[in-house]
Structures are given as C-alpha cells and as structure tokens.
C-alpha cells in the first residue's frame, strides 16, 4: 500500500469517525440547550441560515474590513473545503474538478489563516487568548494539510511525494485539523461558534432582525407564572442558551460597552461566556479575555441549576448595563445581551427585591405616584401653567377635547426644569407649524421604560395598561414625544398590551414639518456643534437622519464624533444606570463629554431628556447642551412666530378641533 492509498483509506475512516463524533457532540450540545424554557421554534428560519450568514452577519462583520476579508477567506475556504473533503473522502467522489476545487479552497483558507495569524500576533485586548490563540494554527494546519494532500491528486506533484514521512505528517496535521475544525465545533472548541452560530441565526428569538428589520422591544413575561425572570441558566429560553454558544469572543461588544470603558464591572463578552459556563457547568478560570473591570477571573463558577447572581455573576455586573444596545448592535453573531441582562434583573427585582441604589425608592414612587421622583400626580401639568395647552378629556367647561391630530406625550420632563425648556420649545414649534395637538394632562403616567429596564415588569405593565386605556379614550393620528425612551416604549413595547399607535420622535416629526416648509429655519448662523445620538432613538429605532437633517436645515455642519450613529457612546442615562449608580473608575457622561470636546464643538445637540440631564451634569466648563427643539426655536424664522400668537389665542378660546 502506498502512502497515498493509505492516506485515502485512512481519511475515509478518520473523517467518518470525526463526523460521527461531531454528531454526538451536537446532540450533547443540543441537550444542554434544551434545558432552557420553551420558546417559539422558527423552523423556517433554518432555511434562511445561509442568507443570514452571508448577508446579515457579514454586514456586521464587514464593519471591520480586515476581519471581514479574513473571515470570508478563512470561513469560506473552510466551508468549501469541508464540503469537498466530505465528497472526496467520505463519499469518495473522485472527480478531478473537486480535487482542484479543494486545492483552491484550502489555499484560500490558508491565506485567510495567515491573516488570522497576523491579527493574533499582537492581539488587541478585546480578543480572547487561550484556545483562541490556537485557532490560527489549527486553521493553518488544516488548510495546509489538505492543500498538500490534494497537490498530488491534481497532478501538480507526483503521487507519493514525500513518502511515508510526509504521509505521517499529513495524518498528524489532518487529525489536528479535523479534531479542531469538526469535533471542536460541537464539543466546545473555538469552532463551536460555527455550529451554534449557524443554528442561532436560524432559530433566533428575534426573527425580525434579519433582512434589515428591527426588533428591539423587550418581550413581556407572564406575571402569573411561577417564577419571574431568570434565576438559573435553565430559566432562559432554550434559544437564548443556544445564542450564548454562538459567541466568537471577538470582543466587539466589549469595545463598545460604555460601562466597560467606565471601569464598571461589566464586560458583555465575559457575561455571555459566563452564561455558557452556567449552562454547561464549570468555572470561569479558563476565560482568556478581559475580565469584568475590578473582578478577578477564576473566582466564580456556575451550573445549569445553580443561581447565577453572586455565584457566577456579581449583581453589580447586571446593574452596570445602561441597556444602550451597543453590544447587541456590534455583535456579529447577533446575540441579545440586553435581553439576558433584563431577564436576570427581573428576577432580582421582582423575586428578590434587590434593585440596588435608589431603585427601590424609584419603583415605590412609580407605584404610588406614577412618576419616578414621587411628585404629586396632580402637579404634572404645573410646568405648562402658562402654555394654554389643550388637554384631552371630556370636560367641556375646561375646553377639553376628545380628538386632535397629534397627542403630545410630555413624559417625566414635566417635572424637570431643564427638560421643561425643551417641552416649551416644542410647543412653540408645533404652534408655529399650526399643528393641532393636545396633551393627556394629569392622566399621563410615566411610560414605564425605567421600571421595565430595572426589571420591574409588573410596574411597567401597570403603567402601560393605564396609559393605553387613557389613550384609547381619544382619537389622534400620531403620538409625538421628545423622549426617545417613551417613544421606544410606546412604539415597540405597548403593542403586546394592545396599544398600537403611530409614534414619532419629535426630531422625526419636525423633520417632516421642515421638509414640508411648515417650519422655516434660519440657516445663516454658524454653530460649532456636534450631535449626540440617543441610544433609544438611534440603535433602538434606527433614527439617525432626522436629527441631522434638522441640524443641517439650520445651516450646521455637524462636527461628528468618532463614535456616532450606530456606534454612538451612551450618555450613561439609560437602563436605570443613574438610579442603580454602580461605581466605576470614571463616569460615562464624562467620557461622552470628552468625545464632544474632542470635536472642538461649543454646543452638543441632544434629542433626549435623559441625555441632556446626564451631559449637563458634567462639571463646567464644558460645551453647552441643547435639545434640537431648543436649537430649532433659536433658528425659527420670526414671521412664523407672530402668526402663532394668533394660534395661541385660538387654542385658548376655541379648544375644539
């Protein structure tokens, strides 16, 4: 038997065995996932895997051109090679074209692996080391082995080149390569991501995300169920567990996480890896990436039926998250970190009653007064005493109305002097554009955003139901609000409770008015200005253009920050982070203000009351913080204002629509 015949024989056995082993591994892995709670199975999604892989996933990967090319070469080469190897060696289809193809694909993979190797020579801190440092070598060995193996078959080299020595080397290489690449896929090596990742793409909990869609609203839970929220890994949905396995530890989430950057004890990548540890059991000693800032690796362990918080993951880690979704947005594997965090927070809040910081007080206030700071509900309209607003209601004596074009959602800015300025500016602009609008008055409650992010689904659902039943009494076309949190909540999260509305953020609404020439803006002033994207407007709702359009309509050339649009850094105000107030090395708004200062802007335009509060909280001297509505009011062309004085009087006298 020549060395080549031996190889051919041996490879059949080896690869068949490896495939079998892989299958066993896959079953074991699936059993792990199946420990999770039931969830809708989107079978059709499985058919979509290649498309999702090649389009949706690649779209995210492609934000880093180097890695995307490398990944195309490596992964493409590998997938192709694997298919060819199976055809050639398992099914023994000895077609020359396949041989040539394998030569090409393994070469492609080899080239890719060189770039992987280069990348890993001086790995940036977001990359995990450990077994991941082995991966480029494995890729190289695999691709090189099959390349060399294939060379004789193509006739470029005579068969039996290298004799037994080479054959043995190739056997060793192929065992290594296949072991890593095939068995590792289901038994837990770095290549696990390919297997779990593919399934995850198919069976993703948010199918709407693929094909350019969005799905960012949190999913409601049944408040009458036995356990509220996630205590142990098995309390996650099975497809959430699957999703954790999809993580490639690329650390893009870590790079984008504001809490991590601020030195708070959160690293989204580590969190997902910890979830994997929890699911499979074990400790985190082998984790080879950046730790949670301030927490040593190797001190925590977990298991599928062991409570997660303070055993596997410290509670501070969960409460550091601002729910800014930067991690989710950056994740090439489309893992939903925020869902997982909120699920665990729900258990902490609703079962253990351990919302940290001022959480308890805020939630109690929301219960007693429908606003987070405990102001008397009857004072909600105090800020507008001089605005002559039309209020929805049935009291005709008070000139209340039951219908209007626009429902102006005021939000909790009603109680905050800073953000009352934004509201007043909005009102003047709406009047300038002769928009027929009304407010809910004292009947409006907090949207529930804060309660929900703090894990208090019960309070959220109460507030949402109350708001929906109030709004359903009246007729209007559009809800407009200056608060992206309320915007997101009502738009994306009230639907589950029967509240389906056409909701617009004020920037979107005003952009329409400006483009319809209903609002005329002075574009002659030169402002040194940058724009800070609110997470709940940008990443959550994909609105990056309207605010920029408005600023440009005022003649502003925006000095964009490095981190802007989908990679904009959070102000630190979301997800209840200012309430839970987990200490770090620095404050997130300070970092964001440093980003602003870097652009040499004198004004930072914001479009969210949370952002304005957080950024104005940065000690002076610092650039001025102005909501886009305020800037618009400054730029509003006067003639239009004069007209509105009439409208004000009309509103006052008439009130009817």
């Amino acid at each position: 038997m020549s060395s080549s015949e031996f190889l051919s024989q041996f490879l059949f056995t080896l690869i068949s065995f490896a495939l079998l082993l892989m299958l066993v591994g896959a079953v074991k892995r699936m059993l792990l996932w199946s420990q999770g709670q039931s969830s809708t199975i989107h079978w059709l999604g499985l058919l979509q895997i290649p498309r999702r892989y090649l389009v949706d996933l690649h779209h995210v990967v492609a934000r880093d051109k180097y890695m995307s090319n490398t990944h195309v070469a490596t992964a493409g080469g590998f997938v192709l090679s694997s298919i060819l190897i199976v055809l050639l060696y398992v099914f023994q289809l000895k077609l020359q074209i396949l041989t040539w193809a394998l030569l090409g694909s393994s070469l492609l993979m080899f080239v890719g692996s060189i770039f992987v190797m280069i990348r890993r020579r001086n790995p940036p801190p977001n990359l995990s080391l450990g077994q991941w440092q082995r991966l480029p070598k494995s890729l190289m060995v695999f691709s090189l082995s099959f390349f060399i193996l294939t060379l004789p078959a193509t006739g470029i080299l005579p068969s039996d080149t290298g004799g037994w020595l080479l054959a043995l080397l190739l056997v060793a290489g192929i065992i290594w390569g296949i072991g890593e690449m095939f068995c590792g896929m289901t038994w837990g090596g770095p290549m696990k991501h390919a297997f779990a990742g593919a399934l995850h793409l198919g069976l993703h909990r948010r199918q709407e995300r693929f094909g350019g869609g969005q799905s960012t609203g949190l999913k409601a839970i049944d408040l009458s169920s036995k356990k509220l929220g996630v205590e142990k890994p098995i309390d996650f949905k099975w497809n959430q567990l699957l999703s954790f396995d999809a993580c490639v530890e690329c650390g893009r989430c870590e790079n984008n996480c504001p809490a991590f950057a601020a030195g708070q004890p959160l690293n989204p990548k580590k969190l997902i890896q910890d979830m994997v540890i929890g699911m499979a059991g074990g400790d985190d000693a082998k984790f080879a990436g950046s730790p949670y800032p301030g927490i040593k690796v190797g001190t925590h362990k977990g298991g599928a039926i062991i409570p997660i918080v303070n055993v596997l993951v410290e509670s501070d880690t969960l409460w550091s998250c601002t729910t800014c979704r930067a991690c989710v947005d950056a994740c090439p594997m489309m893992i939903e970190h925020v869902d997982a965090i909120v699920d665990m927070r729900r258990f902490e809040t609703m079962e253990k009653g351990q919302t940290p910081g001022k959480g308890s007080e805020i939630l109690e206030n929301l219960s007693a007064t429908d606003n987070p700071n405990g102001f008397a509900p009857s004072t909600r309209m105090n800020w507008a005493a001089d605005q002559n607003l039309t209020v929805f209601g049935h009291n005709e004596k008070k000139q209340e109305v039951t219908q209007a074009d626009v429902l102006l959602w005021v939000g909790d800015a009603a109680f905050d002097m800073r953000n009352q300025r934004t509201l007043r500016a909005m009102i003047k602009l709406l009047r300038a554009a002769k928009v027929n609008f009304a407010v809910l008055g004292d009947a409006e409650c907090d949207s529930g955003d804060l309660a929900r992010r703090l894990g208090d689904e019960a309070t959220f659902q109460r507030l949402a139901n109350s708001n929906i039943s109030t709004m359903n009494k009246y007729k209007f076309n559009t809800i407009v609000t200056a608060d992206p949190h309320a915007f997101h909540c009502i738009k994306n999260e009230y639907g589950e409770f029967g509240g389906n509305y056409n909701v617009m953020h004020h920037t979107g609404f005003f952009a329409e008015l400006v483009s319809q020439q209903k609002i005329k803006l002075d574009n002659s002033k030169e402002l040194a200005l940058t724009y800070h994207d609110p997470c709940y407007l940008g990443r959550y709702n994909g609105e990056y253009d309207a605010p920029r359009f408005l600023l440009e309509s005022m003649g502003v050339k925006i000095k964009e920050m490095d981190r802007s649009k989908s990679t904009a850094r959070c102000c630190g105000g979301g997800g209840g982070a200012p309430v839970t107030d987990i200490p770090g090395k620095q404050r997130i708004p300070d970092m964001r203000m440093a980003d602003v200062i870097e652009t040499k802007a004198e004004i930072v335009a914001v479009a969210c009351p949370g952002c304005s509060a957080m950024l104005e909280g940065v000690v002076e001297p610092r650039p001025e913080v102005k909501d886009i509505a305020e800037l618009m009011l400054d730029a509003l062309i006067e003639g239009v204002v004069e007209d509105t004085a009439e409208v004000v009087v009309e509103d006052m006298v008439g009130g009817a629509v």
Partner: protein
Amino acid sequence: MAQFDALFQPLKINQLTIRNRVVSTAHAEVYATEGGMTTERYVKYYEEKAKGGVGLSICGGSSVVSIDSPQDWWKSVNLSTDRIIPHFQNLADAVHKHGGKIMIQITHMGRRSRWDGGNWSTLVSPSGIREPVHRATCKTIEIEEMQRIIGDYAKAAGRAKAGGLDGIELSAVHQHLIDQFWSPRVNQRDDEYGGSFENRMRFGMEVLHAIRAEVGREFAVGLRICGDEFHPDGLNHDDMKQVAAYYDATGLLDFFSVIGSGCDTHNTLANVIPNMSYPPEPFLHLAAGIKEVVNVPVMHAQNIKDPNQAQRILEAGYVDFVGMTRAHIADPHLIAKIKLNQIDQIKQCVGANYCIDRQYQGLDVLCIQNAATSRESTMPHIIAKTEGIVRKVVVIGGGPAGMEAARVSAERGHDVTLIEKNPELGGQITIASKAPQRDQIAGITRWFALELDRLGVDLRLNTAADEALIRSLNADVVILAVGGQPFLGQNPHWGVEEGLSVSTWDILSGKVAPGKNVLVYDTICEFSGLSAADFLAQNGSLVEMVTDDIKPGAAVGGTTFPTYYRSLYEKDVIMSSDLILEKVYREGDKLVAVLENEYTGQQEERVVDQVVIENGVRPDEEIYLQLKSDSRNKGQIDIEALYAALPQPILSEEGEGYLLYRIGDCVSQRNTHAAIYDALRLCKDF
C-alpha cells in the same frame, strides 16, 4: 430643582392661572409719558420680566382713575381716558406672548399728591387734612365728588379690561383715597362716610361694587392694603384684619396684597420700601396675619430678594405669592436663572433703593447695579458673544465701572484682564460698605466677583498698574476705571497737608482711627458723609455733622435718609446746616474748626479732636495722561455714538495700537449707576 418647588406651583386668581408664585408688585415706574400713556419703554420693561419668567406683574403703581388725581408728577399711567386702551393692548400682548400675566394698580390719590401742576386741581380728602410727605393742602371731599370718583374707578377698571390686561389692583395702601376714608387719623367726618367702622368702609365698598358692576365677576380684582399703619392714631394690625375680613366677606375680591406700615410721614415711608438696613421680610407677620382672616390668595412684598427666602416663605404658607419687585428691577431674569440652576448668577437687589429714591424725586426708575433695566430698547440684559474679532481688553481698576467693563467684555468673548491695586474688588463700594447698616451694598461687588470668576477674567489683585505694565500687556483696548481721590485740596485752609483734616474714606476704610470728638463736614450731602458720621458715632465718637447745604444728607433719597436719621439721632449726633468750613487750625492738643454761616457770614468755632471732610472725588488722571498720546483714539469716546447706544465707530476701523477709554469716576465724579452705565454702553459693542 425641587428645592424651589414652592415657587413653581401655579395658582389661580379668579379665572387666571398664574404660572408661579412670584409677582412684580405695583410701583410707580415714571415711564409713562404723553399724558400718562404707556410707552415703548414701559412695555419693554414689563416684557423683559415676563420673558424672564415672573408669574404676574402688577404695573402702574398709583395709576390714576380721575383727572383731579394728578398723574404727571410721577408720570404714572392715566386711566381717566379711553386713549389708554390701545396702549394697554400693546402692553398686554407683549407680556402674554411670554406666558406672563399683567394687571394694573388703579387709584385716586386724594390728598397724597401735589396740586401745583397738571390741571392745577384741588386735591380732595375725607376731612381736608394735609399729608406731610407731599406737603399739599386739600379740600374736604363732597358726596357729589365721591360719586364722580366712584364712577371714575369703574370706568378705569373697564378700560383696563378693554385693554386686555388680566386684572386690576385697587390701591388702599399708602394713604390713597380709599384708605384715607378707612383711617380715623384723616377721616373725621360725621356723615355716613365717617365715624363707625361700616361708615369708614363705605367709600371703598361703593368703589368695589361699582367696579364689579362694570367688569363683571370673572375679571380679577384685588386690593392692596397695609397690615399696620404704625401711626398712634392710625389703623393697627387688628383693625386691618377687620378691614380685610370685611371686604373679603363680600366675595368680590380675588386677592389681597399686603404691605407693612403706613407712609404719610417721612419716617414711615421708609418702611414701605425697606432699604438695606432692614432685616429680610420685616413685615411678613402682618401679611400672614391678614392671610389668616381672608379666603383669597394673599401676596406680600417688602425685602424679599432671594430664592431661598421666597421658597421658605411660600413653603411655610405665610402668604400665597411673594412680591420680588426690586429683585426684578435688579434682575428681570431672576426666575429664569432659578430654573436654569444659575442661582449664583442672579444679580440680587442690595436694597440701595436708588430706584425708589429716584421715583420720589419724579425721576424715572433705574437700578443702581443694572444699567439695562428699563433701557431694554438699547441696553441688553444678556450680552451676546461677539461675532467679530476677539480682542485683548485690559481694564484698570476694580470698582463698579471696571468690574462692569470687565464683565461685559468677557461676556462678549474677549480676552479680559482686570487689574486692581487693592487686595479686593469693589473700589468705593468697599469703602461704602464699612458703614453701619450699609454692609449690604457690598452685594454689588459680590455678584461681580462671582461673575468675573465664572467668565474666566484674568483678575490681578494687589497689582498697581503703571504705564509699563499696561503697555506690556499689548492690549487692543485699555479701559481706565481707576476712580479718584477725595477732593480735600479745594480749600488749603482745611490743613489736609498738615494732617489737620482727614477724608471720610480715611475713616470708613479704617486708615485713620476715629477721634473722640469729631466734626464731620459734608458738602456733598450724599451717602459718604452720613455714613462716616454714623460710623464714627457707632465707634463711640462724639459727632457733630456740619453742612453748608440745607440739611445733612440733603441729596439722599426719601426712603434712605430716614434710616440714617434714625441711626444718627439715636447716637446723639448733632446736625448743623448752613455752615461753611472756613479753616482748621491746631490749638494745643486740640483742633479748632472755623465755621461761617452761609447766610449771615457770622463765624463760630468748634474745638474737636478730629475733622473729617467729605468734598467729593477728584479723578485720577496720571495714567490716562501717560497713555493718551499713543492711543489710536487719543483717549476720546465718540459721545454721539455712545449716547445713541451705537458701537464706537473706531472699533470697525483698521489701525495699529490700542484704544483708550476712561469710565466712571476717573472721568468725573458721578455715582455707581453712572459708572456701570458708562461701562455697559461702551463695552457692549466691543
């Protein structure tokens, strides 16, 4: 900003929702011209407050309803003619545009006026008793006249309503006609309008009913009363509670505004607008007492200047609205600054009473520290950043002129250096603040110091600026505000050189210790002389205050000299007028001052230990003369541009070297307001 939440609770007056609890209460502005019509200046003055966020303004203190209540002495608003209606519409629109509400105070002043002007009318009063402050005599009012005047009240109220104002406040305070009937001190009638309580109330009651018949129940009508007249034969607090309850019981009034003290003598008048010598809210207890007996909102003004103070008063519930009237003259954006969390940026009233003391002289109301107030057409309250070139501005002297120049220039965005030779800012304000009861004046400096720090002005204290230093700074603009020195050299016989006489500055600044037996000679008759005398007496000196004028402190206004007099008489200071200090000579260990009577030429002497002279300030010109010739503008201000509030033309011309300007007392001695106005109108266009 929950710490000021009591200020920001809206409250209804009748049908009117007032957006917050802060009111600019009625005061005479002295801005209405052309027979008492509200002018553009008038409108802008109130518009600025509304823009700044005040809840309610009550304008037109003592606006008259009848032609026999003269209006032109104080250029008050004239509601006796329909001509006023369109003017009111302008005023109402301007205020409403910013969410504010505006009412007007209406009154007939009865005996509290002067007859020698206007229509040369005969003044009327219940019993024809003369009022001491205004000195005019008056006749006893007849029932026919009363009926006419009641009709005038109603028509005037109707005009306010027709003009779109939000309400009226009837003045029954300060001894106007309504409360002249109330007070047994001046009402000695024996008909149905005098004697019993009900009879004394009758005139006011008829006015109220007539007004309601004219304007209806939905229009806001309030009554301003005093809480205690503080006259032995006047109405006391219990009487006033009875009055308030009586009127409140009609259900025809929508609010009461309560003031402490009557004011038909010089001494009580000073209480009405308490100056800096008074404690905060000295008469709040009177307003709180009235609130106990009435069912409608009560407002109270008098020395409420600070947001914390206002919050405390409102939170406790003593009254429903606080009047922060002078506080708004000093800073019409007070409310906005509270809302913006810029409490430290509020220019706080210091109670210098420059505003009201001008008013009592028939001059337009101005603020000692805010030159933009009531000049809204030409002077900005908010200084915009320059869109032109950024200049290097060097200001020499940290008195009021220098501080304002530095502040305004820095607000414009220029690179500003302020050089002051003393270890602290303030200039003459610092000296003035050393006198008893005058320490609050330092509040002017306090605000500037905080502002200059906030604006990042390069402040060089303890630095004497000389020519070399100034030139080395390579300034584009040099502003000299170095003030001057006491002008004691006018009469060489005063023996200043020999040390026989010292200045009031020497005394107040502590440079010279108070003597045991002191003669203070004051030719200026403003604050410094009185302050020095008070300071000396406070420190145990035996003081005689001598002036060649008609009385010591003759130039000090009507709400300020009484508090000086209280303090000086209390300390046995002797005040002598009409004597000129001819010379001072030494006799043994004593000084002898020779005084000559202005009118007889007779001379007399005083044997004293110390002679202190106030004879005004002579400008310091030395540095100016050194820098003048090299400056681009030869040190000259284009006064046509300056007076027209236009930019100095030279600013837009090309040229090498520096511009040199002099402002404040280093040009010629005037006062704090003049110094600040000089600085603002010059620097606002840099």
